[in-house]
């Protein structure tokens, strides 16, 4: 069983991971990896994007654990390093994160013990770091300053989660790294992490296997702007150019990375509010983050054809560049990967929001008796905490994700998805549900409470999506 470890660094990493989870919930599948192990690296533990992604990941795990052998929706197994190394699996959102020590309520100057270093060293430090850098609180990240990030992030090798990563890594496993080149955490974290993995010097198990493993990465060039504030988005491009030059010399030319993806959009992008970090940093989902998630699928597809001794560089392009993108504007491989899953899961998500109320206790598939052959999808199920706090919560987050994608620049909202929330469509789904309920396999265990609902909607949404 091969695993794909995904290191998501900084706010962009979290947002790409969110798009990846949404695609996987919808049924997009990896071909050459059985398990996905997301690892988020972000010192800003209060970051809105980070917490939203952890919440989504945790919710995904809870739902998946209650489905017997998922086939489409929630098919991909997403797990944590903790569950891979522990005999008692648990589902906790903190397990998706590398916890950085001493970044909470600590200033950068305290972190580097500035007050205790001698004058000569202090002069060097003053050359490398501005007064604002030294006074900056680390609990809200590096605020677009990779020079700070490169110091603080060095510590993640000592973390327990990194040890577990080494412990669980096997011969056939791969690694993928997500970062942005124009911020602070991602720009600093990627070269550091890659160097650590490739050098074979990390104090973890299997470091020799990790050293020679397949590693891919997606690096984001600027794709949004910020309103005037502490982080200057005017500096994004300059920082990106400098970092690209550095990456080119130290990563690509020296063949440290097997597959390097670049993504960016300078022309047609959004301007977000300027939040230096914390819970206010919760940017709307963006098409480029979805494209980043697609690059992970591309990396997975190419696993068998990539030469482990070589470096490949990829860029992402669309077939037609328009302000509002549709699946038809993507290339064939991406279109085939997400077209049906997005349509079908959108049907399911909209139904979970406002379709089921008409059917409960009325439609055959929600009534349990001798004649209906329904075993567990009853009013009690729809009233249960599991349905409300897991399925409904996840599908609501999915719809918000879609809405954010559609409202951003460039927008991405497939035409067909707009048709998935009408009463006529809900009626078609209910008819299909009635017709298919007797063909749904019984859950393996009683705890697989979502099994019947998910399997039923996999069938009915597949039938109805062809009528859209």
């Amino acid at each position, binding site marked *: 069983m091969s695993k794909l470890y995904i290191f998501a660094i900084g706010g962009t990493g979290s947002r790409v991971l969110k798009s990846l989870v949404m695609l996987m919930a919808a049924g997009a599948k990896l071909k050459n990896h059985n398990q996905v192990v997301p690892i988020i690296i972000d010192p800003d533990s209060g970051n809105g994007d980070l917490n939203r992604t952890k919440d989504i990941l945790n919710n995904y795990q809870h739902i998946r654990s209650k489905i017997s052998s998922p086939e489409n929706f929630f098919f991909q197994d997403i797990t944590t390093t903790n569950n891979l190394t522990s005999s008692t699996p648990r589902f906790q959102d903190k397990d998706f994160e590398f916890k950085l020590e001493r970044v909470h309520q600590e200033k950068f100057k305290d972190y580097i013990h500035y007050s205790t270093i001698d004058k000569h060293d202090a002069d060097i430090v003053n050359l490398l770091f501005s007064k604002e850098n030294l006074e900056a609180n680390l609990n809200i990240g590096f605020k677009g300053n990779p020079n700070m990030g490169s110091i603080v992030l060095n510590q993640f090798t000592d973390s327990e989660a990194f040890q577990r990563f080494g412990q669980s890594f096997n011969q056939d496993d791969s690694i993928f790294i997500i970062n942005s080149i124009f911020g602070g955490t991602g720009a600093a974290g990627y070269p550091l992490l890659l160097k650590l993995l490739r050098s074979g010097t990390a104090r973890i198990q299997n470091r020799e296997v990790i050293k020679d493993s397949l590693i891919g990465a997606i690096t984001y060039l600027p794709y949004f702007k910020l309103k005037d504030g502490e982080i200057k988005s005017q500096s994004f491009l300059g920082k990106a150019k400098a970092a690209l030059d550095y990456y080119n010399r130290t990563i690509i030319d020296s063949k440290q990375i097997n597959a390097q993806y670049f993504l960016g959009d300078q022309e047609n992008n959004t301007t977000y509010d300027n939040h230096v970090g914390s819970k206010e940093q919760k940017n709307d989902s963006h098409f480029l983050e979805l494209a980043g998630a697609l690059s992970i699928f591309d990396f997975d597809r190419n696993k068998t054809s990539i030469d482990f001794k070589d470096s490949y560089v990829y860029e992402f392009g669309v077939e037609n560049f328009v302000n509002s993108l549709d699946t038809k504007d993507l290339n064939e491989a991406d279109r085939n990967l997400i077209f049906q899953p997005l349509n079908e899961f959108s049907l399911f998500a909209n139904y979970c929001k406002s379709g089921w109320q*008409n*059917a409960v206790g*009325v*439609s*055959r*598939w929600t*009534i349990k*008796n001798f*004649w*209906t*052959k329904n075993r567990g999808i009853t009013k009690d199920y729809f009233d249960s905490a599991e349905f409300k706090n897991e399925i409904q919560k996840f599908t609501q987050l999915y719809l918000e994700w879609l809405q954010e994608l559609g409202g951003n620049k460039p927008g991405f909202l497939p035409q067909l998805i707009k048709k998935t929330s009408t009463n006529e469509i809900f*009626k078609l789904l*209910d*008819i299909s*549900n*009635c*017709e298919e309920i*007797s063909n749904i396999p019984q859950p393996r265990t009683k705890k697989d409470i979502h099994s019947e609902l998910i399997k039923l909607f996999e069938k009915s949404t597949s039938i109805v999506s062809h009528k859209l």
Partner: protein
Amino acid sequence: MEVIYEFLEDVFGIFDENFQYMFDDMREYGVYNKMGISFIAITLLIFFLFYFFYKNPYAKFFPHWVITLAMSAVFSAVATFIIVREGLAEYLLDNDPEVADFANQLVSSYTAINFGLAVIFGILISQALRLGSKVQPHLPF
């Protein structure tokens, strides 16, 4: 069919020896068979459509199933009315008012009997048809 209707004639006191010839004519011209087949066929057809072609996932006992039953009973009654009137046409126009009255009374009685039979048959046939229905097996209750 004749046996069933003869039994019902006795139960409801419809039979009258003085008008034996009318009953003989009905038997001879197959009116009993037509009446029987009509209510069975109409009820079967309507419930078949309800259980296999009417795909309303939100159908309930009331009004959907009850309306289906009522429709099958009314259509059966109308068909019976037409069949019996046709079978007894010459007696309905008879100059003897006693004969015409009895013929009219027979039309009403058979119409009412078939209405009731359609209701009973509708309930029974529902239990069988629902077994094969995909969308409405939970009805009538």
